[in-house]
């Protein structure tokens, strides 16, 4: 398998706080990579750095064979690396249809824009097809998360970075979302941040553990669960 995404030696400091400390992450094409760590461990900073939201102090990021270090967010998105936000972010005052059409703009000029039947299929899969005229802000959180996902898929990403995709959802909704995410694997590679192990165990092929900005473990979920350092520093406290 080829490397889809390679982050080398990422460092970022906020005043006295070291948010990222020499972080190396490699994701292969088709692989689902999870990132876990307690709150404030630098997970979101990592995604922000990769997607150009946050300027790095040092380090390089390659995506699909291209150096995207320091590239502005819209170009990263256009290169095929989409991301969602921890607090769901949609155009709350526009209709669902307008949200989706705005997300399609990025491919408007390109030949690879989504065919009409693909769009119909996508919206049907995410159960948004009957909600197109609703104001996005009036949707339930679960619907908003699906809309967020649909907007990203309208851009035909190669890799989608999900920041706590089940955060705030009810137990039943979490199960439904997990199924959606499992089906999503057929469409693009997934990088997923969570601070609960359960989601990662079910979804990820490989897990990176981040603690206070430092990568302390990297491997299949089963091994990570046995890793003494992870148990001590993270699982131990999380289960306490």
């Amino acid at each position: 398998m080829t490397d889809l995404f390679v982050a080398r030696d990422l460092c970022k400091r906020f005043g006295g706080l070291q948010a990222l400390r020499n972080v190396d992450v490699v994701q292969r094409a088709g692989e689902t990579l999870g990132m876990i760590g307690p709150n404030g461990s630098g997970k979101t900073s990592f995604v922000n750095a990769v997607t150009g939201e946050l300027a790095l102090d040092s380090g390089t990021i390659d995506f699909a064979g291209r150096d995207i270090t320091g590239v502005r967010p819209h170009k990263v998105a256009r290169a095929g690396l989409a991301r969602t936000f921890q607090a769901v972010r949609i155009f709350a005052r526009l209709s669902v249809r307008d949200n989706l059409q705005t997300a399609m703009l990025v491919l408007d000029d390109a030949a690879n824009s989504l065919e009409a039947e693909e769009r119909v299929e996508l919206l049907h899969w995410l159960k948004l097809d009957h909600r197109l005229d609703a104001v996005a802000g009036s949707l339930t959180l679960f619907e908003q998360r699906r809309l967020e996902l649909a907007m990203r898929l309208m851009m035909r990403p190669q890799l989608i970075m999900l920041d706590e995709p089940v955060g705030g959802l009810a137990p039943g909704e979490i199960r439904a979302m997990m199924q959606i995410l499992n089906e999503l694997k057929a469409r693009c590679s997934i990088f997923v941040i969570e601070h609960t192990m359960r989601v990662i165990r079910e979804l990820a092929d490989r897990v990176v553990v981040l603690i206070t900005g430092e990568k302390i473990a990297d491997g299949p979920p089963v091994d990570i669960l046995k890793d003494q350092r992870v148990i001590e520093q993270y699982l131990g406290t999380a289960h306490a």
Partner: protein
Amino acid sequence: MRRYLRSAITPQLLLLLAAAIALAVVVSGNRFFAFVLGITMISILWAAGMNLLTGYTGLVSLAFAGIAGISAYGTVGLVMRCGWSFWLAMPVAVLGAAVVGVLLGLPSLRLKGFYFALSSLVIQTVLSLGFVYFIGLTNGDTGISQIPPPDIPLTGVSFHGIGFDLLLTFAAWLSLAATWAIAHSPFGRRLVAIREDEVLAEAIGIDVIRNKMLVFFVGSLYAGVGGALYATYVGFASPRSFDLLSSLSIWLMVAFGGRGTFMGPVVGALILAPVPFMLQQYDTLKDVIYGALIIAVIVLMPGGVYGTLLAYVRRLPSLKRYLSKQRGGVPNDGSVRRS
């Protein structure tokens, strides 16, 4: 782009043009009414440009009249001093003003909401001081009078009377057609996305910086064309015509009508532009009335007259299908009360 330009020629727009021409012809018998209509047409043009910035993109730019002033003084200077034809001078001055407009829009890349509005107010004040200070170019507070009207190329005569009124009418209509085309183009959608959420807009691949610069360029074109036409129509240009209060008046026309709606600013300009003329010698009352209206719009009617009407009508199912084709919304500048 042509696709969107073609879509601009809709039956509604043609009807608007016919109505405006009819109005211009009807009032042409009375010079006073014709003059009020002419100024109203320029106001519509300005309001359309301000609507692109404030309504669609959510940037409250209080330097708008200053940009118009740069173009007005530029055009007048090139015509009166260098002997250029208006039709050569105007595009040059407008382009110059638009470039300045882009430069003055640069703070918007760092500043949001109130802070950008404040920076634009500072810039407007500096421009106003500049208009007074560079007496050689602007004749200071006294202003430049006896500005000749635009020439009709190759004929040796100038636009005057009904001809000039129709020219203004056409210019106003053209600005609306352009706004319509922009609102229905990907560019227009990008602007709305930037207004609603810049971070999300970037995350879905929209170049926020480039589109903001573009909208400042286009918006300044509106300001500039209006400025050049205003100076030549009135025959007089002074710093007072292009000061902060002028910017606020244009903002008010947009907000009073309905920010981010296509027809709102037209309604606002039609209602508000004639107000100073109706007051005649009680001219300063205009400030009081405009001030009161600004407060009323912010407090009572964030959507504006047309916007509120539109929201009301949208609830009626019979009209829903027709109106769902019209896009619009209220800009994200805090004047909207959210639940």
